[in-house]
């Protein structure tokens, strides 16, 4: 095998291949992309697992995330500190959870975390309003925003506590056939 790369040891690549949905080539390509974001910060040699984190501001300049209205929330969800600073492992985790072969349940869990802005394990009305504002770039009027969020809560909330728990969210996703293809970032 042509193992001429010195970025990772073989064990590291095996570990990545086992624990993510990527192959060795894709991991190496991802490392290249990660390094492009901050070449002075990220070393070429990752064999001794350096503890480097690329800040949020640099990660959202990636072309795959730049135009996405939820880019900040996505990066924050996968970061360990919750502020959006990703290590390489977090970076790989993020794209692995959002890739094509990732299963529906995993994507549902992460989608719920992304839409839960205040991180209280419920999607409350405030979270929905923030989602709507991100999606429409604040171009709807106040009344329209409230109306849409009310309707959304009414339709999806099953247990009547005026917020969406994870099971409500899961139930709604199970009825959406194109969720898998929509919740997918190609890298």
């Amino acid at each position: 095998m042509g193992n001429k790369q010195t970025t990772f040891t073989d064990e590291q690549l095996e570990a990545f291949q086992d624990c993510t949905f990527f192959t060795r080539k894709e991991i190496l390509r991802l490392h290249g992309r990660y390094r492009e974001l901050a070449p002075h910060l990220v070393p070429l040699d990752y064999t001794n697992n350096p503890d480097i984190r690329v800040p949020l501001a640099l990660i959202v300049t990636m072309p795959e995330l730049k135009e996405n209205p939820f880019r900040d929330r996505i990066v924050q969800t996968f970061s360990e500190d919750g502020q959006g600073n990703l290590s390489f492992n977090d970076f790989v985790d993020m794209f692995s959870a959002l890739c094509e072969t990732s299963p529906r349940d995993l994507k549902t869990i992460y989608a719920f975390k992304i839409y839960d802005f205040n991180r209280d394990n419920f999607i409350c009305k405030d979270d929905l309003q923030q989602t709507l504002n991100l999606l429409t770039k604040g171009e709807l009027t106040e009344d329209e925003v409230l109306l849409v969020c009310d309707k959304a809560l009414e339709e999806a909330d099953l247990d009547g506590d005026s917020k969406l728990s994870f099971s409500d969210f899961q139930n709604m996703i199970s009825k959406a056939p194109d969720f898998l293809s929509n919740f997918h970032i190609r890298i």
Partner: protein
Amino acid sequence: MSARDRTRAILDLPMSFEEKNGECFIFHHKTKCCIFSYDLYIKSARQTLELWQGIMKEIGGKFGSSVLSYFVFLKWLLMFNIFSFMVNFGFITIPLLVSDHSPNIPPNVSFRGLELLSGAGYFTYTVMYYGGYSNATVGQVYDMQLAYFFTIAVYMVLCGIALIFSMASSFRQNYVLADSVSNSAWQLLCSWDFSVTNERAVRQRRNNLRESLSEKAQEELLTLSEKLRHYGVHFGSWLLSTGLAVGCGASIYYLCQYEQKVHNQEAETLLVPFVVSLINLVIPLFYSLFNKFEHYSSQRQQIYALVVRSGNVFLRLVILAVLCYYWMNVVAEKFSCWESMVGQALYRLVIFDFLFLMLGSFFGEFLSNVIGTRLLTSLGVPEFDVARNVLDLIYTQTLAWIGIYFAPLLPAIQILKFFLLFYLKKVNACFQEFSTCCAIYQRSKFIPPRFVCLVLLCRLSPSEQCGPFQGLNNTFAVVEVWMTELEGPSHSHWTVWIYHNVIRSELFYFLVTLIIIVIIYIFWQVTKGRQELIRLLRQQIINEGKDKFFLLDKLQNLQKSHPNRNPKQKKQKEVCCDRVFFLC
């Protein structure tokens, strides 16, 4: 659990990479992961053999899944036409070519370039059309009549089955989707396509979403007079689009009649297909223009769906209906070898449709792209309307399906057409934005007209002098003749028995219909029962939620009213509270 299952289970966990790595490491050095690499190898080998696999991935990545669905549909149609061409060529054309090498062309007809467009002249006497096939028995074994009949019949049945299956599967999807497309929660949380990276596309999707949400919100806040005004606008648009379609249909009919009266030269036969293709190109543009200028109504999206989509479908159905009616009533009476004439007319329609598609793509899309981006940026870039392009594909394929009885080698042209169209649309899509309404196929709309046409055509009597069914009263008589032949020798009595007692007896069809009705009734009752079950379960969830709040309240009251003397008791109460939280 096998190593593979275990790895899969770990991959499915929502843990970070470091945590998963710990789990993996325990058994990693015990197993070889070559199982996965073997799978990947087979997968990549299969992928390189499939046509256009790499290009499809590229398109899906750049433009999203709705545009990809158009190209997937195009590829499916291409494969279908390749299959039908091979079937027809193999079973019908090759035996004829083998038996009779030289077509019997009259001496004064030679090949001129015009035949490629008009399909008449030299081509009339070749195997392209119905008239070129004889009713002889090749080599005393292969009956051309039966071969022609059964090839076309089996092909049609396969088409029908494939369409019904795809209709059933898309209906199942759309039934769920239709329930949730009007659903605000779905639109808010599931509809955004994360894989779109093109800035213009994102902006357009945002606008679409904003418009549709705003429309829905405003609908709630309407007064009665405004509602009436909205219905009026809807009705007016529907009237306009229907009136236009009917007008076009009538004009095509009169044009056909006029062409009949002055039928002298071959070049004049090109007039009708030219006008049909022109109408199919211009009127949809007119519909979209009408939609663009319709600023005063806040219901742009709904009217778009009504006028543009249904209007286009209705227009093409009307034109096809008028043409079929004309062919059946006028052409069948007048000409001696009328099937070949109909075949030629369909050939011309297919060719002109192809030319106009190419010209439309070039002038309509490519040039206006160049103008829109370089010269007059205010015009903006035209849209790659997925629904309209899918409709174009369905229309051309319907023409081919109707024509396969009259011109068995028509799929060859379709193959060429779809092949070129793929590359043309791919180049164009690079420059365009695209509309993001859901690409719900409307294949089902074209099934009834096609079958009705065919059934009616088969009831007409075949022409006397040409084609494989000469001299018979109608097409089905072929099977009757064959059955009477089979009654003679002692074997194959079972075939004759099946024919008389199953296919020709009304009792059989009555029984089958009865069974189908009973099955439908059973499924309907099951569905109703399940809906009732869902309603009851939902009510139960709400009740459980209320119970939970009630119990928590009681617990908290209990805690407040009994101040704790014993720290152990206090801890027990806390554990109890936590458990209640956990269980709910």
